[in-house]
């Protein structure tokens, strides 16, 4: 898909006649229909992926077929409307959040310009309030007294194929980042609305391939990338070899080893592609440095969970592997790598869905003796929590000058910031491994952080322009610190970010690289018995 040239897009976001730039549409939003054309939608899920998922116990993915969003006829089941309304009723009964969020919005508009998709596209339906109204209007029509009595006058509208298409378009122009919910006086969380819309769409066989294919892979091979056990092992071994070449340190790591104290799980992207590879090298070095008794798993080789972007059943099923594997291997607790949505699932859903994990112990660092009471029930801690505690106790031999080539800033990923509250642990680490790192402007960090623009499974090339638009607020904040402080490295604790921010920087801010915080830790570690080459680029140095 051809992506608009930088100059064009830069002009378009400022001057294009959109609601974000001051233009007002001349039609009521209910009278504007969603038109699908190449570049404005992510490809539909392949038939065999939907069939595979539907064949799995506990999952329901009906209506697998060949279809295209660009066709008029989406080949929906004959009783699609009944399915959708029944599905909506069922979800209203299962999720209090949905009911409250449908009922309480006063349309104050505080959320409108908080959305990166709205800022980048100017499309009024990307204002969180209007995204929710797409569903709310149908809810009013079929589930409220006012809507039933007064119809359109009360903001109600009937469920039609047009509405369904609109749902598809805008529930996949939302990354469930929750920024709007920070500003909403009732805490209305568009992520909840988008999740429900996506769940409903799957009931009639409407989904995107970039989510369902990794999810299928993850179910079968254990990870999104579809790496089979031997390949997964090869990839990690390869990283260990690289480390040996660079530092002379031989890494002792293992796979599926029973009796290890700790199970380590990270997004498979970390062992698959740059720049995540360097983050994974950072993990390997760190664990080697402290002599941690840990194992990787090829069965639970995925930290991420695309079920979160699909429906709660799939999320539960994919997540279940973590505890199942911890139990099988008999580990004491789990450490999780850097990832945003993975941590939303672990922090807010895992214990509820697949706990209690009473076969493990409350995580206690074998190096410092610190007990992680905040993970007393899930038995799973974040690598940044683990690392920060090590630094606090002086257990790491760090040399900041080894990151002298880096002038870093830090991007909070949406999920760790707004669905976990992990803000200061990575910053504490940065303080100790990277000299002079700087913050982006205050309205763009911490709980107000801007999404990379491609989360929730939207990291697919066919919608590149959309992604560059929705990533603009983040890119713009990075540009601010590039201009002001000559920042050359955007650090983060998220695997999706490492992929998406790389594309985003290449487009808006060429020359600025992206890394995981653990890569900077790995760079700075002074290993015992090392025979380190001149690493002018840290672990990225080509030797």
């Amino acid at each position, binding site marked *: 898909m051809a992506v608009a040239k930088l100059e064009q897009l*830069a002009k378009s976001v*400022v001057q294009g006649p959109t*609601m974000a*730039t001051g233009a*007002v*549409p001349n039609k009521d*939003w209910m009278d504007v229909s969603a038109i699908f054309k190449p570049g404005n939608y992510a490809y539909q899920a392949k038939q065999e992926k939907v069939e595979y998922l539907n064949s799995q*116990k*506990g999952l329901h993915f009906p209506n697998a077929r060949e279809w295209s969003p660009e066709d008029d006829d989406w080949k929906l089941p004959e009783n699609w409307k009944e399915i959708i309304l029944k599905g909506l009723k069922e979800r209203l009964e*299962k*999720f*209090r*959040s949905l*009911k*409250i969020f449908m*009922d*309480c*919005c006063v*349309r104050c508009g505080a959320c409108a*310009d908080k959305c990166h998709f709205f800022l980048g596209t100017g499309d*009024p339906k990307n*204002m969180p309030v209007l995204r929710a109204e797409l569903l709310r209007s149908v809810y009013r029509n079929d589930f409220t*007294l006012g809507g039933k009595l007064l119809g359109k006058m009360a*903001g109600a509208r009937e469920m039609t194929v047009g509405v369904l298409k609109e749902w598809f378009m805008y529930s996949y122009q939302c990354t469930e980042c*929750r920024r709007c919910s920070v500003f909403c*006086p009732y*805490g*209305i*969380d568009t992520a909840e609305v988008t999740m429900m819309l996506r769940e409903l769409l799957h009931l009639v066989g409407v989904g995107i391939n970039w989510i369902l294919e990794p999810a299928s892979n993850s*179910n*079968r091979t254990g990870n999104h990338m579809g790496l*089979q*056990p*031997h390949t997964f092992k*090869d990839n990690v071994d390869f990283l260990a070899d690289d480390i040996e070449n660079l530092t002379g340190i031989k890494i002792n790591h293992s796979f*599926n080893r029973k009796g290890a104290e700790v199970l380590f799980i990270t997004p498979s992207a970390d062992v698959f592609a740059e720049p995540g590879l360097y983050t994974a090298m950072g993990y390997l070095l760190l664990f080697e440095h402290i002599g941690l008794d840990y194992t990787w798993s*090829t069965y639970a080789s995925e930290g991420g969970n695309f079920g979160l972007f699909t429906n709660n*059943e799939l999320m*539960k099923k*994919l997540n*279940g*592997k973590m505890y199942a594997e911890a139990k099988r291997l008999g580990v004491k607790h789990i450490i999780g790598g850097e990832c945003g949505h993975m941590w939303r699932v672990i*922090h807010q859903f895992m214990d*509820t869905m697949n*706990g209690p994990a009473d076969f493990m112990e409350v995580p206690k660092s074998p190096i410092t003796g610190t007990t992680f009471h*905040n*993970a007393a*029930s*899930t038995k*799973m801690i974040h690598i940044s929590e683990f690392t*920060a505690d090590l630094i*606090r106790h002086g257990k790491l031999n760090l040399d900041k000058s080894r990151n002298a080539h880096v002038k870093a800033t830090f991007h909070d990923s949406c999920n760790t910031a*707004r*669905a976990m*509250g*992990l803000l*200061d642990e990575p910053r*504490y680490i940065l303080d100790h491994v990277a000299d002079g790192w700087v913050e982006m*402007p205050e309205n763009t960090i911490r709980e107000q952080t801007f999404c990379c623009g491609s989360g929730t499974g939207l990291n697919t090339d066919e919608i590149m322009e959309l992604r560059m638009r929705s990533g603009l607020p983040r890119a*713009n904040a990075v540009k601010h610190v590039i201009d002001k402080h000559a920042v050359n490295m955007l650090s983060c604790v998220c695997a999706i970010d490492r992929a998406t921010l790389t594309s985003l920087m290449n487009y808006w801010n060429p020359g600025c690289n992206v890394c995981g915080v653990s890569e900077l830790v790995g760079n700075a570690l002074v290993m015992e018995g090392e025979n380190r080459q001149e690493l002018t680029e840290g672990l990225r140095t080509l030797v």
Partner: protein
Amino acid sequence: MKYAFSFLAVIALILIAGLGSQIPGMQYLFGVVLPYLAIMLFVGGFVYRIMDWAKSPVPFSIPTTCGQGASLDFIKQDKLESPANTTEVAARMFLEIFFFRSLFRNTKSEIHDGPKITYESSKWLWLFALIFHYSFLVVVLRHMRFFLEPVPFVLSALEGVDSMLQIGQPAMYLTDAFLLLGLLFLYGRRLITRHVKYISLNNDYFPLVLIFSIAVTGILMRYLLRTDIDIITIKNLAYGLVTFSPVIGAKIGAIFYIHLFLVCVLLAYFPFSKLMHMGGVFMSPTRNMANNSRSKRHINPWNDPEIKPHSYAGYEDEFREFMVDAGIPVEKELAAAEDKA
């Protein structure tokens, strides 16, 4: 035209009450029957809505964390924005409900050439929302004097403070002015701010116009149209309503019935509208839950134990050969697995 429609609707309501209450015998309907009906709808509807919300479980712990969560002892937790226990949640909710904490965060973004996006603090909505809600609250509380005998000291004190500027005769209540001011702002921004105008529905304009009309009729009654507005007669009626012995005494002016009727409409409309945000704000799971889901297991009543992960055994069966070749430990060695098969 949605904003105009709301005016038409309220004008129609005013005509109904203004004319209807002047028909002999209809005073009982407007003064007694409709108020009782409205109160019943309000209380019944409100309770029904709360119960209906409560009926749906909260399957997952989904607080929106707006600050550092409880973590290591050297990492400072933000107790208000990322509460870890019930006390901290209560404090967060207190700020949200009494001071509109989230709205206070509001920013306004602008896109400039470059492109360069800027975010400026924007507290107008927060300020006028506070002015409106608190003025309305005081006005409602002041009206309690009609239903209580003797009038409690706190109410008299409240009136005293509210009229402390001693402007005019009778002394003007500050909250009357602030209420109108708040309403004008909230209505005005729906007409002027382009994105708010685009999302506004009848459901948004109507309650503003309705409350505005209630306020205006109340103010007219107190300060200007005082013919047939005998405060004793009105108090007798109000007191009679709450003691279930309502009496329509001497003649009361139409303006009173209009005021009362609009209040009845508001009460009846309340539970079936967005005004239920008053109850909903207490029950929003992103605000009223503790961010402690890793230390304390949250229970989902409909959690399906039948949803299990793709089993390790199934995984090993599919990939055993590769695993053995790669030296990855397996549960069943190749030969054993083949024997079984």
